[in-house]
C-alpha cells in the first residue's frame, strides 16, 4: 500500500469524487424537503424543486402587476449594470494607481502610505456616507463597489509592477526609452493579464458590496429581491436567486480566465518572466 500522500485518483475517479459532494447535498435536500412537505404541505422552509420552478417561471415570464416588467430579468440587468460599472471603474483606477506607484518611486513615496490606510477602511462602513453624498440612486451603489475593490486591485498591481524584472527596465533605457515609453510599451502591456487575474479575485468582494447596497436601498436588483421576499419566507425565490448569482459569478470567472488565455498567450504559458 502506497502512502496516502502518494495516492492520486485517475481522471475518471477524480470526476466522480468531484461530483460526489454535489450529489450528496442534492440528495440530502430532496430527502429533507420531502419529509417536511409530507408533514406539512404549506411548509416554506425547504420548498420542492417544482415549487421553485413555478416561482421562477412566474418571475421570469409574467410581467409584474406593479411595473409591467419581467422581474427576474429586470433584477439581473440592474445588478449586472451596477456590478459591471463598479468593477470597470475599479479596474481602471486600480491599474493606473498600481502602475504609477509601482513604477515611479516618487509617486510611490507620496501615495503608498495613503493607499495602505484607505485599504484598511471597511467599505461597508462608508455606505451611509455614500448614501448621504450621492443619494439613494445608482451612483452610491456603483461607488460602493468601486471604492470597495479599487484598493485591492491597486495594491495587487503595484506589487505586480514591482515584480517586472529590473533587467527589462534597464534594457529599455539602454535602447533610449523615456519613462513614458517604458510605461506604455514595457510595463502597461505586461500588467493587462495581471489586471484580469486581479479582477477575477475581486469579483467575490464586488458581489458582496453589490448585494449589501441593494439590500439597504434599491427598487430592483438580485440582492434587493432576495431581501424583499425574505419577509414572506419565500425560499422558493431566494434559493433559485442564490443559485443564479452563483452561476453568474462562475461564468464571469470563466470568461475572464479564457480571455486571459486567448489574449495573452505569453502570460498563460508561463512566459511572464
Amino acid at each position: 500500500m502506497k502512502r496516502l500522500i502518494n495516492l492520486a485518483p485517475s481522471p475518471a475517479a477524480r470526476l466522480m469524487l468531484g461530483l460526489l459532494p454535489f450529489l450528496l447535498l442534492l440528495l440530502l435536500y430532496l430527502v429533507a424537503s420531502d419529509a417536511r412537505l409530507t408533514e406539512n404541505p404549506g411548509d416554506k422552509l425547504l420548498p420542492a424543486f417544482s415549487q421553485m420552478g413555478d416561482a421562477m417561471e412566474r418571475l421570469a415570464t409574467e410581467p409584474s402587476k406593479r411595473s409591467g416588467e419581467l422581474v427576474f430579468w429586470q433584477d439581473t440587468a440592474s445588478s449586472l449594470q451596477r456590478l459591471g460599472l463598479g468593477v470597470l471603474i475599479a479596474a481602471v483606477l486600480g491599474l493606473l494607481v498600481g502602475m504609477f506607484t509601482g513604477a515611479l518611486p516618487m509617486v510611490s513615496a507620496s501615495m503608498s502610505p495613503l493607499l495602505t490606510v484607505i485599504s484598511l477602511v471597511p467599505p461597508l462602513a462608508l455606505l451611509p456616507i455614500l448614501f448621504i453624498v450621492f443619494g439613494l440612486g445608482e451612483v452610491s451603489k456603483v461607488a460602493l463597489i468601486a471604492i470597495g475593490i479599487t484598493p485591492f486591485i491597486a495594491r495587487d498591481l503595484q506589487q505586480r509592477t514591482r515584480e517586472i524584472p529590473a533587467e527589462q527596465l534597464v534594457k529599455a533605457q539602454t535602447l533610449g526609452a523615456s519613462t513614458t515609453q517604458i510605461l506604455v510599451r514595457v510595463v502597461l502591456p505586461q500588467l493587462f493579464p495581471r489586471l484580469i487575474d486581479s479582477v477575477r479575485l475581486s469579483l467575490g468582494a464586488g458581489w458582496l458590496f453589490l448585494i449589501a447596497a441593494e439590500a439597504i436601498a434599491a427598487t430592483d436588483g438580485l440582492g434587493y429581491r432576495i431581501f424583499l421576499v425574505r419577509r414572506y419566507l419565500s425560499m422558493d425565490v431566494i434559493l433559485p436567486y442564490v443559485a443564479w448569482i452563483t452561476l453568474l459569478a462562475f461564468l464571469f470567472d470563466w470568461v475572464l480566465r479564457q480571455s486571459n488565455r486567448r489574449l495573452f498567450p505569453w502570460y498563460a504559458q508561463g512566459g511572464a518572466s
Partner: protein
Amino acid sequence: MIEAHNVSKAYGDTQVLERISMNVGDGEFITMVGASGCGKSTFLKMLLGTESPTGGELVLDGKPIPDEPGPDRGIVFQQYSVFPHLSVLENVMVACAFSRPGIGWLIGNARLSAKRQSMELLERVGLTAAINRYPHELSGGMKQRLAIAQALINQPRILLLDEPFGALDPGIRADMHELVLQLWRETGLTVFMVTHDLKEGFYLGTRLWVFDKLRNDPQAPGAFGATITYDLKVGEVDPETYDTISSRVHETARAVEETLPEVMP
C-alpha cells in the same frame, strides 16, 4: 575613450572594488574574468550606469559616465533581457521606437523602415524563421540572439555583456561566440564581457582583465576589495600564465566562499 582613475566601490563596510585604473580605446573587446563576488559584474554595472563608483572617476570621452543607463551603452544580461509580451520581431521593432520621440509606437513609413531594419538584423543573427514567436517559445540560445539583436539595432558605441552565455549548452555557446565576434568585427563597437569561464575569456576578444583580491583578511572579509590583477593582450598569453591565473582565481574563489555570508550585498 573610456578611462578609470583609481575607481573604487564599497557597500557600507564592504569594499568590493579598489584602485582600478585603466584606459580602453575604441573597438577593443575586453573580457573580464574572476571569482564570483570579485566585483566584475559591479564594474560592468558602473559602466552601464546602474551603480556609481564610491571613489575615483570613471570617464567616457572626457565626461563622467552618467548615473543612469543610456542609448550609447547596450546591454545583454544572462536572463530577462527581452520583453516577454512581444514577439521576436516586435522586440526589435520596439527598440527602434524607443530611439525616437513619442510614446513608443511607430506608424506609417517609420514603422515600415523599422520593420525592414529589424528583419535585416534578425537575419544576421539567424532568427528569420522565428520572427513571430514569443520569447518563451525560444531556446536559451535563440533568446540571447534576440537580446543581442535588440541591443545592436540602435548602434550603441559600447556593448556590455553580463555572463550572456552562462546558462547555455557548450555547443550553443561556441555558436554564440562566433556570432558575437562576427558582429563585433562588422560594427567596430567596443565590447565588455563578464564571464565565469576562464577559457572563454582567454580566446574571445582582444584583451583580458582578471579581477582578483590582492589581499584577503579571513577575519574581515569585507576589508579589502578586488582590483584588476592582470591586464593581458589576448593571443600573447603563454600556458604558464594561464595556469597561474587559473589557480589564483580558484584560490580566491575558495577564500571568498568560506567567508561569503557577509561579503556581497
